[in-house]
Structures are given as structure tokens and as C-alpha cells.
């Protein structure tokens, strides 16, 4: 006699987690489909996801090294080592938030763990992230700029924290978005604002200096994305400080700490994200039962 499956008003968190773990293959399938769909009917296909960032790096290089020199050495590389992370985060959250609404057709017709939809949106963003990451590496190789090899291993906890955080937010937001479609527009605005609070365009130390000047004490590193972005910059960009032209005093760009400092911050972010993830799973589970009728 096969085991019983119960459809009832409430399904426990533990059961949800188990069901989700059993849907791994479905997630990987959905990720592949999304990647394929994105470049369907385009001649260059997946190459676009590499050409786009390559072109952007080129333009930033032109603007910030030649036309409007900012003084920061290899500004394009600096910018991009943070931007790849941010691109992953923002596309994951934005596609994740609308995952339930844009897949209404299958949500209303087939019974499956709906959590896989926002999660596979994160997975698809991860695939695009890898292409961009490769572009950054190629650009660095072309510029004979070497990453910080001693810090490379810290990328693992950083990436893990980023993925869990994106998944947690996607789960939460996709569920809420079913009821309030404004959420997906709010998220866009919010993500744009958030980006300016993360040291991507301005270096970390410049942010800190500004805050210090105005005596603002903000728990800057409490923002889980900040240590993750810093880790990527530390690894890919690897220039901690530089000496501006015509000055003898070096200017700090990134926090001067060892890999363990970065790692512990990333682990902190990971722990926080995991808590958020289970909260997301819980909230999702509470309101998932009504998705099919609300969509």
C-alpha cells in the first residue's frame, strides 16, 4: 500500500522542506528551461549573456579611465567585480518575485511544490552570473590583472550566503506578490535604492569616510549583501589601497583584513539568510494554499 499523502489546510515546515529537497531535479529542469527561453529566437543565444557585460565593461572603461578619470585604478574591473554580485542578486529577486504570477498557468493547473518556482528563478540567475563571472575573468586576464588567490576560497561562503538570501527573499516576495501585484514594482524601486547603499560604485572605504564625516553610525556590515560584495571585490579586484597621482598618502578602497574576517562576515550573512529562508518557507506555506484561486 503506497504511503498516504495528505492535502489539508496546513502542511508542516518539515514536510515542506523534505518535499522541496525531493524536487531537486525539477528545479534543475526549470532552471534550464528558463535559460533556454531567455535566449529563444535570438541568433547569438546564450552569447548575449557574455556580450552584454563585456560591452558594459568596455564602456565603463572608456568613461571612467579616459573621459572622466576617477582616480581609482582599473575602475571598470572594480565596478564589475561588485556588479556581477549585484546583478545576480537583483535579477534573482526580481524574477523570483514575479515567478508565481508569470507561471500562473502551471500554478493553477498542476500540483507540485510551488516553492520550486522562485527558487529556480534564483538558479537561472546563477547561470547568468557564471557567464558574467567568466567575462570578468577574461577581462582581468586581458589586462594582466591577477585576482587575490589567497582569498578565493572565501567566495564559497559568500556565494552560498548570496544564494540563500536571494532564495529567501524570492520566496517571501513571490508569495506576497500574488496578493499585491504592486510588490514586483516596489521591489524594482527598492533594489535600485539598495544598490546605492552597497559599495559597488563607490568603494567601501569612501562610503565609510562619508558616514564618519557626518558622524552617522550605521551598522553597515549588518546588510548581508555588503560583506558578500566586499568578498567578491577582494578576490576579483584585489587592490586594497592605491596612491592617487600627486599625493603621497595611500587611499583605502577595501577593508584591510585577512580572509578569515571576510569569511566570518559571510558566514554571519549565511546564518541570517538561512533563518530568513525558513521564515520565507513558512510564510509561503501558510498562504500557498490560496495561490490557485487568487491568480
Amino acid at each position, binding site marked *: 500500500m503506497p504511503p498516504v*499523502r495528505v492535502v489539508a489546510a496546513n502542511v508542516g515546515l518539515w514536510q515542506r522542506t523534505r518535499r522541496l529537497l525531493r524536487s531537486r531535479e525539477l528545479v534543475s529542469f526549470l532552471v534550464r528551461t528558463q535559460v533556454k527561453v531567455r535566449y529563444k529566437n535570438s541568433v547569438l543565444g546564450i552569447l548575449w549573456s557574455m556580450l552584454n557585460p563585456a560591452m558594459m565593461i568596455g564602456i565603463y572603461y572608456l568613461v571612467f579611465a579616459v573621459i572622466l578619470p576617477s582616480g581609482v585604478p582599473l575602475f571598470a574591473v572594480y565596478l564589475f567585480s561588485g556588479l556581477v554580485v549585484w546583478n545576480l542578486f537583483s535579477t534573482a529577486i526580481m524574477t523570483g518575485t514575479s515567478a508565481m504570477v508569470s507561471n500562473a498557468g502551471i500554478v493553477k493547473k498542476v500540483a507540485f511544490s510551488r516553492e520550486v518556482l522562485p527558487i529556480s528563478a534564483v538558479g537561472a540567475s546563477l547561470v547568468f552570473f557564471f557567464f558574467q563571472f567568466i567575462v570578468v575573468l577574461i577581462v582581468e586576464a586581458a589586462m594582466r590583472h591577477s585576482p587575490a588567490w589567497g582569498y578565493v576560497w572565501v567566495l564559497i561562503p559568500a556565494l552560498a550566503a548570496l544564494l540563500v538570501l536571494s532564495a529567501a527573499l524570492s520566496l517571501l516576495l513571490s508569495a506576497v506578490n500574488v496578493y499585491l501585484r504592486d510588490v514586483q514594482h516596489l521591489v524594482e524601486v527598492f533594489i535600485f535604492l539598495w544598490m546605492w547603499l552597497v559599495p559597488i560604485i563607490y568603494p567601501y572605504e569612501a562610503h565609510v569616510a562619508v558616514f564618519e564625516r557626518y558622524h552617522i553610525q550605521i551598522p553597515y556590515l549588518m546588510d548581508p549583501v555588503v560583506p558578500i560584495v566586499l568578498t567578491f571585490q577582494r578576490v576579483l579586484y584585489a587592490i586594497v589601497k592605491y596612491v592617487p597621482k600627486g599625493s603621497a598618502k595611500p587611499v583605502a578602497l577595501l577593508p584591510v583584513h585577512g580572509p578569515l574576517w571576510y569569511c566570518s562576515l559571510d558566514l554571519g550573512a549565511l546564518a541570517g539568510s538561512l533563518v530568513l529562508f525558513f521564515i520565507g518557507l513558512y510564510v509561503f506555506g501558510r498562504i500557498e494554499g490560496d495561490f490557485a484561486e487568487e491568480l
Partner: protein
Amino acid sequence: MDAYHAIEVAGVSKKFKLFSEKSTTIMDRFVHPGRRPYREFWALQGIEFVVEQGDQVAVVGKNGSGKSTLLKCIAGILRPTEGEVRLRGSVSSLLELGAGFQPELTGRENIFLNASLLGLSQREVTRRFDDIVAFAELEQFIDNQVKYYSSGMYVRLGFAVAINVSPDILIVDEVLAVGDESFQHKCLDAIKAMQEEGVTLLFVTHSPDLAQKVCERAILLEGGSMTFDGPAGEVMLAYHERLREEEMESARLAAAQAGGDGSGSPGVTPIRIAGAAVEYPGSETSQAMMSGGTCRIAVEYEAAQSLDDAVFVLDIRNHDNVTVLNTNTDLLGFFPECAEGVGRVGFTFESLPLAQDAYSVSVAIQKRTTDRRYDAREQLASFSVAAPSTPFGVLSVPVAVDMGGRDAPGPAGGVSTVETVPGAVTSGPVPVAKAGGR
């Protein structure tokens, strides 16, 4: 294997909130602060039944009675507000059109998507892919985007996937109606094959034929409650009885509203069917008539006023609910003039060469040259026909057989075709209608 309960529906109720207009923007929430006005609506109330593993159950009911909602609750797409559903075994469902396809993807990709959502691994889908495509007969279109499919093609693909994932429980919501006839036959064959493999089937249909053909058991939903649960034939009969009552009720209401169009007092049908009797003059027993014998069907009516525009319609159906004979007084060139009071119209069949079976007689009285139906009674009377030899089909006539050369009697000489077209007026037996007072 011991039979077990594949589906247990325990006190399932489902409440929908009906908003006058669905507001899903924050702006709306600000404009209408507090709780948005809504009406609660129980689409299902305390549904309770059990389906044994390997059983086939039809769910019937009027539009909006909650059939799809029930199926969605069982399939796990909607969550019941109260109660729970316990399922044993894997479930595959095909709910209304579409079956969860992404219009932008091709048929091929959608097969993979759908089968993966139903829980199949990639390897398994690859293995079954050819079967699915072959079943759907969509080889030529499999790499086209699904948005260019016709609705029949949609259903073909959906059904092909749903049955090829080898589920233990199959849940189908009246989708077969969209497929063409050959596909419907194919689906029925597939369902029969699954039946033999012990797959539990739950399906919604509006076709009494299909319900009885496929299922032994049926469930009738009315306004969200389960009002009948029993053998398919009986439930369908009860359902049709219900529909007829409602039709008459609304006809009565309409008549009442129409008021004084001169046809008697409002709310009273000018003429109604009081009964029907089947007699077999010349037959020894009154239980059954011999095939080819004489048969007389007398329809009794009760007129509230004198009428000269009543058309009496007679419909004889066999056990499979196939009409073997349908005729009416107009067609027979007979125009009854019904006086106020009780009277009868008799149809005499000099020779009724029907095959051995049980037949039902349905009667209707219509107003000439309009759609207005004075009264109709389904399966008002029944009779049985006995035949010495029992050929298949609906006719039982003498057949001569030979190994003919040119001299043998041609087709015109013998009867070679069996008329099975429903509703056709057979040319053989010509009923003679007679009307008269008591």
C-alpha cells in the same frame, strides 16, 4: 494486492471569497481601508467519500456545482478550507484546458515541463517521450510553440502526458469533449487499459453516456454538496430527473411571467403529459413483445384548455441510451385537436423489428412551429423486446444469406444495413397515430 482506499475525502469544504472587484494593488487598499467588502461563498460543503483503489468514479453536476473545485482540492491544487484529502499513490491530473502548458515553449519542451512537474525524472520522460507524442499524434507539431496549437491539440497533448506518467490515480476534468471522435475513442481505450492495470479514476463529465460507459459509480454534486453517490446509471437518472424538474420549474416561471398571452391561467401549463402505456396487441404476455410484433404506445395527456397546436413527440431509446426511433405527430401528418380534459394519443407500430433489449419511451409535447415545450417526460415508460436469435445492433430483421453470383438477390432484396443513427426516423415500421377522447 489487497484493495485499499486510494482517495479518502474527509469532510472537505472550500470557501471562496467573492470580491465585487478584485483589487490587487496597494492603492485600492488605501482607497478602501480596512477589510475589503466580500461575500463568502462555500463552493464545497462537507464532501465525504472514499474511492477504492482501481475504481472509476464519475463526478456529475450542473455548471458551477463545484466539480472542478472538488477535483482541484483532491489533486492538491486548491487547499480545502476544512477537512482533508488523503491520497495513496501518485496522482496525475488533467484539469480543464491547458494542463499547465507554457504557451511560449514548444510541445516537446512542454512535455518535459509537464511530466517533470508531475514528478517524473528526466530519464523517465525521455523514455516515454515517443509514446506520449505517438499517443497525441502530434509528431509534426511537436517542435512548434504550444501557443499555435488548436484547443483539441492542447487537450491531446495534456491527456497524452497525464496518462503516460503511469499514475496510480488519474483525475480528469471534462476535457475529452474537446477532442475529436477518434481521439475520444483512443482516450476511452486508454482509460479502459488503465482500468485493467488498477488505476483509480476520478472524472468529471457532462455526458451521461461516457459516465456510464467508463464508471460504475457516480457522484452527484448540487450547489457544493454531494447529494447522490451510487451506481452510475442510477445517479445519472437522478441527475436528469433533477434537471427536468428544474427545467419545468423555470418553464412554469417563464409562463407565469409571460402571464396573459391568452394561454390559460398563468403558471399552469396548458397541456401536460399524464402517462404512457405500452401494449402489445396479439402478444400472449404483457411483459415483453416479440421482435417484429405489433406495439402500441398510448400517451395520456391532460389539457387545461383546448389546443390545436400540440405536437406529440415520441423517443424510443435502447439500453445504451441510443435513440432507435424518434417521431412526432407532425411528421406523421397527424394534427391532434385536444379538447380540454384528459385524452390520449396512440402510436401503433404494425411491426417493430427491434433487437432483444430493454427500451425506454420518452414523450414530449411541443407547440407547433415554436421552440416552446409544453411538457416533456424522460423515460416515462419502458418495454422489453424478445427475439428468437439475438443479433448485435438495434434491429432484428430476417436476413437471407447466400454465396451469390449474379442471380442472387441484390442488396435491394434483403436488408443489409443496420440503422444506428440516433434520432433517425426508420423507414421500416410506420407508426400510425390516432387521437381520440377516452
